């Protein structure tokens, strides 16, 4: 399929010609009877995996099956924070692989994903926070990941709206800053990967729910039963976020996941007031400002497992309490809307990107509350794993078997994030 290439010149030309002549950015094909590989789940991770399979591994007969519409799950519901300041070597390698891909993603896809490395600052409020964050700073720098310690006045200089007075319940005692971190436009990530994958021949099939996984006599994957008919494929990669347990159960594979609602909310749009991303894990607030002007605020997970894509209001108000304390200027802002997504959480809060006991079935899951930042890196190594039937060195530690063998990557205990 020939498609329009985007450039500054082409945008100006379309603008001057009254925006006529724009074409759909990807096809809406009917599913074929057989594919060389199928990705289940049309979020950023799944679309990206299809793109890298086509781009780097020479597979062109690929489909992405999406139950709803692409990017309508957690890709369109997250708070778009990108960072790689994770403690353990395995995590730092994986997340920094992703940050490096983010840096050139718009050029690679010829689609503006609006990656904005505006800096991610994580606030310390207790002596324990200071010790943990300084440990993170040193561990990150040993792994080649930028991270630096700021005193309160320096944090205030980096983020002027921040309240560093000593009279609040949890005063700011310092901060860890990753300058390469930032945000990107979440929808554009799904659309950019979809468009680029489609141009390489990938079929993106929406409104197509997988209802069964057929296996041959040897136990290997043979075909998928879907709401749009049976589709054959010997390689199936599952990238279904909160519904991964449901899909994997169709093949009799157990994965150590629990699905929780995670909520976020945005304020009414205002002029640029917030220059960076600020996270406070201790009092639980994540905030940045979108290019539309809304303050994008991340809340926590609800207490219980659920598939409802909604959560309780007290979770949001808890986060807003923290936001109002840290940024008194925002106390009179009104919140525009809130929503929930279903995140699949592993016991050690690290993902699983791996082969499964079923030949031909691969899984990329367990991203929990922080999968968006990993989209390009995750998709890249997942495509490698599917194409070569063996993990990329970066995702080799992220197996299902690590729970049996005791090789946890325990960001649950170490992570900078309150999960």
């Amino acid at each position, binding site marked *: 399929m020939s498609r329009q290439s985007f450039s500054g010149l082409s945008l100006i030309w379309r603008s001057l010609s009254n925006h006529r002549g724009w074409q759909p950015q990807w096809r809406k094909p009917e599913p074929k009877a057989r594919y060389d590989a199928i990705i289940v789940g049309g979020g950023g991770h799944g679309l990206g995996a299809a793109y890298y399979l086509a781009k780097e591994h020479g597979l062109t007969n690929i489909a992405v099956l999406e139950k709803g519409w692409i990017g309508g799950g957690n890709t369109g519901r997250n708070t778009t924070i990108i960072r790689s300041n994770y403690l353990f070597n395995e995590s730092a390698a994986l997340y920094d692989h992703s940050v490096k891909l983010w840096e050139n993603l718009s050029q690679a896809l010829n689609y503006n994903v609006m990656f904005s490395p505006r800096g991610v600052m994580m606030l310390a409020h207790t002596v324990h926070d200071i010790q943990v964050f300084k440990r993170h700073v040193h561990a990150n720098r040993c792994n080649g990941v930028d991270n630096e310690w700021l005193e309160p006045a320096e944090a205030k200089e980096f983020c002027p709206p921040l309240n560093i007075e000593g009279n609040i319940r949890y005063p700011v005692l310092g901060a860890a800053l990753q300058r390469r971190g930032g945000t990107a436009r979440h929808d554009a990530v799904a659309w950019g990967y979809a468009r680029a994958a489609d141009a390489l021949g990938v079929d993106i099939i929406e409104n197509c729910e997988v209802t069964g996984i057929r296996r041959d006599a040897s136990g290997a994957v043979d075909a998928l039963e879907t709401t749009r008919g049976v589709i054959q494929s010997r390689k199936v990669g599952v990238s279904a976020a909160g519904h991964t347990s449901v899909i994997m159960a169709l093949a009799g594979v157990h994965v*150590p996941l629990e*699905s929780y609602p995670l909520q976020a909310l945005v304020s009414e749009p205002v002029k640029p007031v917030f220059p960076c991303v600020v996270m406070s894990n201790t009092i639980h607030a994540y905030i940045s400002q979108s290019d539309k002007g809304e303050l994008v605020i991340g809340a926590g997970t609800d207490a219980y*497992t659920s*598939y409802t894509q909604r959560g*309780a209001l*007290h979770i949001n108000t808890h986060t807003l309490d923290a936001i109002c304390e840290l940024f008194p200027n925002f106390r009179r802002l009104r919140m525009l809307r809130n929503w929930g997504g279903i995140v699949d959480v592993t016991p050690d809060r690290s993902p699983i990107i791996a082969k499964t006991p079923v030949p031909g079935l691969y899984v990329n899951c367990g991203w929990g509350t922080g999968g968006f930042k990993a989209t390009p890196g995750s998709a890249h190594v997942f495509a490698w794993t599917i194409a070569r039937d063996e993990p990329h060195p970066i995702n080799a530690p992220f197996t299902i078997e690590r*729970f*049996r063998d005791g090789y946890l990557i325990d960001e649950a205990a170490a992570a900078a994030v309150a999960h």
Partner: protein
Amino acid sequence: MLLIVCPYCGKRPEIEFAYGGQAHLARPNQPSQLDDQAWAEFLYMRTNTKGIYAERWRHSRGCGRFFNALRDTTTDHFLAFYKTGEAQPTLLGSGAPPTPRESAT
């Protein structure tokens, strides 16, 4: 916010409770007799059911006691509450409409 019926104290808001995860998981009597796979299954594998799920709650800011509940994870409607040690209630027919009105807001 969920309204949860503690079998001991009655209907209370969710913020009085702590979630206890999947119910009816018995710790193996002889952990040292298990192989690694079986131990990992006990420690880490949960059904993560999409549908009717038996789960534990603890009335941590009330009477402090654990109890169990049946909840539909596709709607967050509770179908039953019962004390620890009691058998999981059987619901009348599969897909029976939820009778209690304790639902998510």
